[in-house]
């Protein structure tokens, strides 16, 4: 097991935009580290660069302090699970798992005992003599895992290992994977586009977009204190509601209401600027008499659509209440540059308790604690700091 350090790693093709742009990361020994981002963000390229399947244009990769970026994949002692699993179709499961050991020149008895141990750990004993074509998706995934862990490598690299499984199996395999990582104490780097996998599996998560790291941190930290609009919009399902607003003499002016100065963080007083307000769906509360906190945004809107899911109710609020112009550098422009998850026309979604009854088309009164409101610069998308409070 090992610590993996990336320093100023870049990868680009002549004349093109960089695929990886100055990435610096440290992955600790025994850490379950997640690289997450939308497709095309460079996360798989980064993984391939770490394992040696892609050459770097610049930067260094070190494993336990030793530079490895000039080494061939076979000399880096890392194992990889491919998205397609890439099992050798002409070999049985046993031969597939034994292949890296055979290449390493281990003795037959040693190979047999290691394969047996891996097969037992992954419940593959019954299918050791089958060929990959006769395995189910879940079995193939486990064989790919077995081939990786039988070598006892310095690190495991997994490229979307669950994306070819059906939804039910994916959830099951996800927790098995987490247990396996814990048991082995292995350094794992896991690439996914699925924020649920990132949040549930990762000790730490790096969010990538456009070849750059947007933010690195524990899932809770990223969710509570996103450093920019992209991270805020990427995590959470349904995503954070984004509403164009401005700060002026009256306070924070939203199309759906105004928050006075006293509730805003210090440092905003006297500034005038266009901002984006972010509100997570679960931070909307149904307004009853005299129960909202003193600094709250109060909203009255029409319930355009209601989805009742038993434990929770999602209410889509009518967009017509938010008809303030976005202004220059408004949300539409920003959305194009930042993320597909943010569009100016996106309806506002509130998540209420499942016991709340809201009729479609009826007016609904909600409030949001000023503490739970995120502010982003309308031009750069950077979180305006300090955030209302460092959320924990």
């Amino acid at each position, binding site marked *: 097991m090992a610590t993996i350090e990336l320093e100023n790693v870049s990868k680009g093709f002549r004349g093109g935009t960089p695929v990886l742009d100055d990435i610096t990361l440290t992955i600790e020994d025994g850490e379950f580290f997640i690289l997450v981002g939308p497709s095309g963000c460079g996360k798989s390229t980064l993984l391939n660069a770490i394992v040696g*399947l892609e050459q770097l244009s610049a930067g260094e990769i070190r494993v336990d302090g030793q530079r490895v970026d000039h080494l061939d994949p076979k000399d880096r002692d890392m194992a990889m699970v491919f998205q397609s*699993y890439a099992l050798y179709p002409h070999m049985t499961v046993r031969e597939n798992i034994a292949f890296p050991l055979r290449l390493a020149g281990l003795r037959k008895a040693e190979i047999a005992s290691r394969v047996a141990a891996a097969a037992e750990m992954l419940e593959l004993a019954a299918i050791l003599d089958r060929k990959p074509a006769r395995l189910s998706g879940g079995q193939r995934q486990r064989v790919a895992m077995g081939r990786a862990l039988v070598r006892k490598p310095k690190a495991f690299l997994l490229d979307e290992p669950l994306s070819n499984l059906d939804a039910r199996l994916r959830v099951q395999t996800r927790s098995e994977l987490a247990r396996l990582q814990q048991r082995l104490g292995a350094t794992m780097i896991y690439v996914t586009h699925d924020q649920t996998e990132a949040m549930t599996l990762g000790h730490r998560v790096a969010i990538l977009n456009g070849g750059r790291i947007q933010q690195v941190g524990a899932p809770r930290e990223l969710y509570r204190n996103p450093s920019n609009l992209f991270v805020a919009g990427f995590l959470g399902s349904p995503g954070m509601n984004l509403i164009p607003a401005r700060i002026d003499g009256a306070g924070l002016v939203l199309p759906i209401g105004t928050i006075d100065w006293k509730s805003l963080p210090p440092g905003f007083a006297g500034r005038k600027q266009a901002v984006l307000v972010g509100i997570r769906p679960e931070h909307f509360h149904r307004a009853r008499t005299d129960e909202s906190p003193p600094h709250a945004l109060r909203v009255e809107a029409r319930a355009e659509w209601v989805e009742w899911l038993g434990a929770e109710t999602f209410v889509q609020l009518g967009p017509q209440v938010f008809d303030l112009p976005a202004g220059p550098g408004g949300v539409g422009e920003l959305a194009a540059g930042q993320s597909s998850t943010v569009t100016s026309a996106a309806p506002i979604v509130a998540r209420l308790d499942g016991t709340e009854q809201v009729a479609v088309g009826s007016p609904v009164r909600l409030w949001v604690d000023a503490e739970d409101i995120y502010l982003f610069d309308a031009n750069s998308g950077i979180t305006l700091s300090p955030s209302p409070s460092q959320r924990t």
Partner: protein
Amino acid sequence: MTGRTSARRLGMLGESAAMLAVVAYALAPLAWIVSLSLKRPGDLNDGRFLPQAVTLENYRAVFNDVQFPAALWNSIGIASMATVVSVVPAAFAAYAIVRLSFPGRRLLLAGALAIAMFPPAAIVGPLFNLWRALGLFDTWLGLVLPYVSLTLPLAIWTLSAYFRTIPRDLDQAARVDGATPFQTLRYVIAPLAAPGLFTAAILVFIFAWNDFLFATALTSTRAARTVPVAIAFFTGSSQFELPTGAIAAASVVVTLPVIVLVVLCQRHIVSGLTAGAVKG
């Protein structure tokens, strides 16, 4: 019986009839030669399809001939050598062309194709002179070299088409598992490309086996003369007798190894070898 099943049966009947016709068309000359080879010399011109009496005399004559066994040995040796010497480098070349990106890759493939289209008759004359100067005339090597040159492009094309069907993930997985590029080719790519390797090998072998042009121009004795040429040099027992029976027997003998080879290799030419490698 409903109209639909009878229509289907009729369709199947038509299909079978068409296949029979094709098989008959292809095999009739072969059957004719087999029949001729089994006839007694006196019956050769009797105009019957089946021999009146079966005799192996022609075969005995062929193998008692001083030329023929040597020619058979030359053919087997030269064709096998040409096959190995052509297919092995072709496998390396095709793997490099498919998997590595280097400048001039397309040019190489196009060039290979151009060589394959080059009319062999145009180089036989110069080769004759060159080979005599180099001492390659009437040697095995003297035939193996042109066969390899002319079949290499074909083998490269066949093999690169096969290599392309193998998912790149498998190469990468092998490299991560600790394989050198050669080990990747040896343990992962080559076994999966086996149908392609066998196809290429058969094509090269048949080309070398059947070649008459080079074999007749570049050989002069039984040191390197191959079967097709040897058959052409057959003479009857007298100047006025055509050695038809012997030629027929020799033709059957020379056809058999190819048939055996194809049947043996056919078991390996199955599709779907890469099933289960990725996705699914």
